[in-house]
């Protein structure tokens, strides 16, 4: 019982970070119908930025977030403009998938050359601190990560719901054609939306760097987990992604603490397959209206 609850706590705290990472990815899918396989690599890249700022300049990772976010936003816009915008063919969905895969490899290569492939971790002085409450352990870093993720998600929510840009994004997600008719410049929304997805990757990356040691290959672990979350949440639904992230991360944490960490990475795959069997459109996805 104790292990179960500890697993749940761990899972929920970690779930926040995954929710943040996945929300960016699902946003990109929602706006452009692009499955961004480079999302994991962007998270790790941001973690490296945050690492360098901390290790070489002594900037606390939490304070570095605004800076990394801004840089990654710019990078995201550039990636969209250079690599994704030129794809205009009928099978652009298929091509964009492969292009983002190539971008992931490009980023991985860049990171391996710049930071080499040794594992890095951001060791702040609070890295190993923890509180104990009712016999359950709460590490400070995880608490911070959780709160930060909530704050970032909150900001994202405000951006989507309270700004003109956010309205344009949501209109595009719901119906690209009528959004265009209503004067939404879908090209600009796509570029900025990809930037926004990259920016959430940046916030998530700083937090990820606090939690785990990472190297340039770590994005592979992230891709499959993030993609499972996005499918589970219903491809394009930010709210769905958040809930799916919590489900996936708590169940794999529970499996890890109760049984064996080996099987925890298998958990999300099993969940993915089960969801596709029972509800192919994901937990919160809807069959697109007028898809025919």
């Amino acid at each position, binding site marked *: 019982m104790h292990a179960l609850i500890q697993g749940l706590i761990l899972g929920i705290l970690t779930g926040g970070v995954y929710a943040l990472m996945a929300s960016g990815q699902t946003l990109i899918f929602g706006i452009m119908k692009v499955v961004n396989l480079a999302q994991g690599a962007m998270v790790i890249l941001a973690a490296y930025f945050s690492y360098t700022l901390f290790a070489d300049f002594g900037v606390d990772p939490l304070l570095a977030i605004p800076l990394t976010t801004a840089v990654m936003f710019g990078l995201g816009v550039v990636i969209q403009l250079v690599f994704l915008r*030129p*794809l205009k063919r009928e099978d652009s969905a298929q091509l964009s998938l492969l292009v983002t895969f190539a971008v992931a490899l*490009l980023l991985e290569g860049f990171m391996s050359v710049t930071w080499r492939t040794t594992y890095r971790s951001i060791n702040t002085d609070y890295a190993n601190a923890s509180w104990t409450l009712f016999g359950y352990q709460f590490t400070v870093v995880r608490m911070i990560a959780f709160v930060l993720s909530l704050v970032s998600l909150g900001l994202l929510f405000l951006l989507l719901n309270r700004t003109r840009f956010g309205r344009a994004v949501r209109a595009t997600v719901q119906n690209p054609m009528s959004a265009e008719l209503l004067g939404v410049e879908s090209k600009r929304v796509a570029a900025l939306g990809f930037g926004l997805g990259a920016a959430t990757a940046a916030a998530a990356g700083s937090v990820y760097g606090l939690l785990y040691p990472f190297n340039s290959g770590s994005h592979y672990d992230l891709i499959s987990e993030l993609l*499972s979350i996005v499918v589970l949440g219903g491809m394009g639904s930010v709210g769905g992604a958040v809930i799916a992230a919590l489900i996936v991360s708590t169940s794999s944490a529970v499996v890890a603490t109760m049984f064996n960490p*080996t099987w925890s990475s298998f958990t999300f795959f099993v969940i993915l*397959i089960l969801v596709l069997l029972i509800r192919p459109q994901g937990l919160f996805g809807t069959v697109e209206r007028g898809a025919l």
Partner: protein
Amino acid sequence: MNVPALARGGVLTVALLALPLLGLEHWVLNLLIFTLMYAAMSSAWNLVGGFAGYPSLGHAAFFGFGAYFIGLWFQHHDVVSGYEPFVILPLVGLLAALVGAPIGWIAMRTRADVFAIVTITLLFVAQTLAFNLDDLTGGAQGLAMPTPPFELARFEWPFYYAMLWILLLSMALTYLSMRSKVGLSLDTVRADEDKALGIGIHVQGVKVLSFSVSVGLVAMAGGVWAYYETFVYPQFAFDPLITIGMVLMVFLGGRATLWGPILGAVILVPGQQYLAYKLGGSQLYLIAYAAVFLLIMLLMPRGILPTVADRLRRRRAVGTSSDAGPPTAAPPSAGAGSSVPVPSGGTA
């Protein structure tokens, strides 16, 4: 009409069968083995990624499956003549196809992007399992195969012919499907799956069939590879770059064509080896590879063969219509009218 195709195939087969007799150096044969391997795997990937239009990113999972199957089998069986691993290759292919069928069935129920997600996830899960199930797979230590007892002068020959056999099998199956209802059905699925469903095409059936056959072939290549390398490590058997290699070669040569993937492999494998040689083991190699990939996608998304074929077709079409004039039997409305923008089609 199909005689030239068969003739081309025959000439290629004879030439490739005879090639080792020229007394090539070891490094050349080594390069040829890898070229054949990638040609075979690209050709196999093309069945599902090209013809059905479902881009699998997880084929390396089945490559690894084949490699580990052969690796594990010969932990418990002896290699005497040296040919035993080749003998059980069909079994490897069959098993992978059987494992692939339910996975394909689930992953292909939804759209192509979900399929890509499920397959790439499968790849990383498979890799994680290979790392973590140390009792079975030896984990990061890898698995050692018995050393092949072939005489040194002709050491590469059996592997060469095994890869060639898989390539020819894959091409024969591709040819067969293109000439039959399988190919016709896959063409409709690729073009417009909803419409295909509505005219009674066995959509799910042919998709799963193509996936299953495709991964079976790739697993066989993985089996030969493991024996040739004599060592199987998780990060090399389940390498995303293997998937990317197949995808890239098919895209370069031309999707849904018989010869495209082979052309892609012939261009890219030596290029890849050259890059690796020039840039060493350093990670610059990865950057160069990704850059080539991006260039191909952006500059020639349809691939070499379809681009060339289209140009020829258009030239021929221009030729005939100026010779013959408008067909007289045409209904009066044929070419005229319809200023309505046409959403589908477009050969551009």
